[in-house]
C-alpha cells in the first residue's frame, strides 16, 4: 500500500495490474507525487475521498499500459502529466456517471480542476469529446490528426498531403479550434466535407 501524508486514504501501489501486466515504475512514482493533489480534487468534486483510491489504481494501470504499448523509455518525462490528466478526466467521468457532483470547495478550487484556457487544445474535455470532434472535423483534418498520432512532425504531414507546412498547420489548428467552438455553443457554418452540427 502506498503510504500517504496525513489524512489521505490509501491506494494500492502494486507491481502488476489486474491482468498481471507489470506496472511501470515511473507511473507508480508519478502517482505517489500527485496523490495528495488528486485526493483534494476528489474531495472537492465528490464531497469525500472514498473513491479516490479506486480511481488512482485504474488511472495508474491505464497510463502504464499506454506507455508500455508505445515502448516509452523508462522514467518517461511526461508520465506525471499524463497520469494527472487521465485521473482528472476519469474523475469527471465518474462524477457524471454517479450524478455526484457535490462541490464542497471554493470556486477557485473548482477552477483548478479545469484545464487551463490559454491554448485551444487544453480546452478540450478530451476523453469525452474525441468522438464528437471526429463527427465534426473535416476528413482532411482527421487524417492530419492520425498522422500526428503516428509521430509525424508538420514537415512530414505536409509532404504526405502535398501541401505547405504552414497550410497544413493552419488548416489543422483552425479545423479543430472551430469545431470545438461549434461544439460548445458557437455553432455556425457547414464544413467543406459536409459535416456539421
Amino acid at each position: 500500500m502506498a503510504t500517504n501524508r496525513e489524512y489521505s486514504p490509501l491506494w494500492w501501489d502494486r507491481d502488476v495490474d489486474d491482468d498481471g501486466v507489470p506496472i511501470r515504475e515511473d507511473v507508480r512514482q508519478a502517482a505517489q507525487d500527485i496523490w495528495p493533489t488528486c485526493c483534494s480534487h476528489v474531495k472537492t468534486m465528490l464531497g469525500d475521498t472514498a473513491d479516490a483510491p479506486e480511481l488512482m489504481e485504474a488511472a495508474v494501470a491505464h497510463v502504464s499500459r499506454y506507455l508500455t504499448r508505445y515502448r516509452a523509455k523508462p522514467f518517461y518525462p511526461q508520465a506525471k502529466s499524463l497520469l494527472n490528466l487521465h485521473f482528472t478526466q476519469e474523475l469527471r467521468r465518474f462524477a457524471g456517471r454517479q450524478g455526484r457532483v457535490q462541490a464542497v470547495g471554493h470556486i477557485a478550487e473548482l477552477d483548478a480542476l479545469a484545464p487551463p484556457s490559454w491554448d485551444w487544445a487544453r480546452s478540450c474535455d478530451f476523453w469525452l469529446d474525441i468522438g464528437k470532434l471526429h463527427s465534426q472535423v473535416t476528413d482532411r483534418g482527421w487524417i492530419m490528426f492520425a498522422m500526428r498520432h503516428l509521430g509525424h512532425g508538420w514537415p512530414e504531414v505536409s509532404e504526405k498531403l502535398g501541401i505547405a507546412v504552414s497550410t497544413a498547420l493552419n488548416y489543422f489548428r483552425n479545423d479543430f479550434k472551430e469545431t470545438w467552438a461549434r461544439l460548445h455553443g458557437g455553432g455556425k457554418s457547414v464544413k467543406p466535407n459536409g459535416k456539421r452540427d
Partner: protein
Amino acid sequence: MTADKSKSRFTGEDYFPPDMDPGELELLVAFDIWIHETHANLERKGCPGRDRLEAVVRAKTKVEDEYTLQHMGLCAACLDEMREIGRELAKASSTE
C-alpha cells in the same frame, strides 16, 4: 518507392511528434484511447494491407491512396501496424 536511409526520419522512439502545440500531447493520448476503445478492428475489416500502409509510412511525396489515408484515422489496428512499420524502418536504417 525507396527510402533515403541516410536521412531516415524514423528514430524508433518518436512516438509523439516533435513539434506539438501546448496541450496537443493530451489530445493525442485521448485520441489513442478513443480509437483503441471504439475502433480496435481486431478482425481487420476493410484494412488496406501492409504494403499500402508501408507505402504511406515511407512516402516523401503526396500520398494518392485516399482510401488508406481515410482508413487509418478510424482503425487502431492499422495505426499500430504503421507505428510498428516505422520502428522496423528505423531499426533497419540504424543497423546499416
